[in-house]
């Protein structure tokens, strides 16, 4: 960093200050003798013998690029004054005061410029509105300030302000000369709020404030979104109608069995209440029947365990078709509960046999097969003829509801 100061007026010295990382070397050509004076990087002091007293500088943290320009250089030292050794300087008091005034004034000017610039930038939309003349006011303010500008730095700020102002002016001009009505985003926002259903509170004091003037309903944005649907040609999103699948293990088999019994119960419940007694008796009757048939099966089997019992011979009642169907129905319960089993003999005819006590496994892991039997009177008759069935193994029950 190299800094050259040029003192005019009373001082005939040309001061050049070179600073490097570790030390600053001050060379002065004082009135009579030049000398070198190493100083620390944070400050430099002048040697008094040269009748040149430098003001203390804070130095160091100045990033501004130095100019090899005499007048511009002076401000560097000036700017870095804080509590400098002003007293007793051989640079004439008049100069110091001028420096001070200038420096204080210049700081003021710079700060005012910066205020103007920030005001233009912050209130851009405000200034753009054709209803006011704020931009002109800013420019007039700048003109006033410019009268006091002496140094390049303030001039640079002035130039920056001008750039920002002309940018704004250009936009304002384009607004004015565009065909048709200008578009004001503020008015648009207000209208939009009304559209969304803003409930304006009646509060006269808050006219100036724009914040929290009323509150928006919950569905405000949804209202706007609905209106937006008309303007957009969005492709509707693809979603599975039933949602994604929810992986669940398949229900265990027991549920199926119970479900088979449950519908019959529910179906019975639909019947009118007067008949409740009879329902239950029917239920019990079924169970009784099933047990009875089991008894027949077991006794028949025990008579001759080796010879297989033909299924048809077992269930068919040659005198009544309906009873045959009932027998088949009751026998199916036995099979379902694992109390009897059906198998095919050598001639591929179905046979039935009771399951031994130890082998009974009620809902167990034995592989179960299901089949559906159908029988019609014609088949029934054919079976009777084919198997030459004379009488039924299963005696008809005493009480009969046909």
């Amino acid at each position, binding site marked *: 960093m190299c800094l050259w100061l040029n003192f005019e007026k009373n001082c005939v010295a040309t001061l050049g200050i070179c600073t490097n990382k570790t030390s600053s070397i001050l060379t002065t050509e004082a009135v009579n003798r030049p000398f070198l004076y190493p100083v620390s990087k944070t400050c430099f002091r002048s040697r008094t013998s040269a009748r040149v007293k430098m003001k203390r500088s804070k130095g160091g943290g100045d990033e501004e690029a130095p100019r090899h320009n005499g007048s511009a250089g002076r401000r560097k030292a000036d700017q870095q004054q804080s509590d400098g050794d002003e007293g007793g300087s051989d640079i004439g008091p008049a100069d110091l005061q001028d420096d001070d005034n200038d420096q204080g004034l210049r700081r003021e000017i710079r700060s005012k410029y910066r205020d103007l610039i920030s005001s233009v930038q912050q209130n851009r939309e405000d200034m753009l509105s054709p209803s006011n003349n704020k931009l002109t006011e800013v420019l007039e303010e700048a003109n006033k300030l410019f009268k006091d500008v002496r140094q390049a730095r303030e001039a640079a700020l002035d130039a920056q302000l001008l750039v920002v102002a002309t940018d704004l002016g250009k936009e304002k001009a384009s607004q004015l000369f565009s065909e048709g009505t200008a*578009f004001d985003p503020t008015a648009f926002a207000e209208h939009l709020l009304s559209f969304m259903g803003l409930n304006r509170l009646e509060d006269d004091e808050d006219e100036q404030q724009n914040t929290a003037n009323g509150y928006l309903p919950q569905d405000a*944005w949804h209202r706007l979104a609905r209106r*937006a649907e008309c303007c957009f040609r969005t*492709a509707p*999103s693809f979603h599975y109608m039933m949602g994604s699948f929810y992986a669940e293990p398949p229900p265990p088999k027991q549920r199926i069995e119970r479900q088979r019994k449950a519908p019959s119960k529910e179906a019975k419940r639909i019947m009118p209440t007067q008949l409740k007694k009879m329902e239950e008796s029917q239920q019990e009757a079924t169970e009784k029947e099933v047990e009875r048939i089991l008894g027949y099966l077991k006794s028949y089997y025990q008579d001759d365990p080796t010879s297989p019992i033909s299924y048809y011979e077992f269930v068919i009642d040659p005198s009544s078709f309906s009873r045959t169907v009932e027998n088949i129905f009751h026998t199916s319960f036995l099979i379902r509960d694992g109390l009897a089993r059906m198998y095919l003999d050598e001639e591929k005819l179905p046979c039935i046999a009771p399951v031994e006590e130890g082998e009974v496994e009620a809902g167990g892991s034995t592989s179960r097969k299901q089949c559906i039997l159908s029988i019609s009177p014609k088949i029934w008759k054919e079976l009777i003829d084919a198997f030459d069935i004379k009488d039924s193994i299963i005696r008809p029950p005493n009480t009969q509801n046909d």
Partner: protein
Amino acid sequence: MTQRKRPSSTQSSSQRRHTGNLVAQDEDDDATFTQPSTSQVQRGLEKLTPAQVDQKTAEVVQYFLVKDQKKMPVRRADLVKHVVKDYRNIYPEILKRAARTFDQVFGLKLVEIDPKNKMYILVNNLETPDKASPVRSPSNPKMGLLLAILSVIFMKGGVVRENLIWNTLRKLRVDPGEKHEEFGDVRKMVTDEFVRQRYLEYVRIPHTEPIEHEFRWGQRADAEVSKAKILEFMGELHEQDPKTWTQQYRQAHSLPNSSQASTSSSSQR
């Protein structure tokens, strides 16, 4: 399934022998995917059964539909890498068929929004209803916000500085600096999500300090949003005839009707 794969795998190996430059060594890079010529497509089609081509077309259609849920554009590179894979030599044919499926089955249009980067989106091909749709599907409030932003940009000539948008949003009680109860991080939604969905463009203005950006309409907005309808909405809000905004009106009805909007050249202040 295995039967289908067998011929395709033998095919790809044979094709690699024949058409080495088509199957890119670096399959990730779309730049090396050269669009196959019509004759190559023909030859490719001959080697495949119609069922295979239909299956691949269906996969492409499904891919698009799922990707469209988030409204992100589909890149050709991704499509080729993940779906088309070995069928890339008949890629133009597959895409053509997929576009036809979209049109005839779904009423959607497959639009290429970026010819340079090869991005595609789906757009509704059916006429938009004049009033709100009778189907009471849940509406997305983000669309409302988007409409507000797009309207401002359009009415301001197509380009606005970001500060204008932020200030307008603040007036609508949506502060980009704070977390909004419905939208969350508003700034991120506007500058990131909407931009990635190609509804908006957020570009840096050069030589600005501090860095400023400007907003424009994105490619998806150009394809999906009707300027005329926006102008209509403006007319409703401001209780003015849309024709009073002559420049915007001209722009909105530009293609066939550019001669119509030449009325009232006097500037209204």
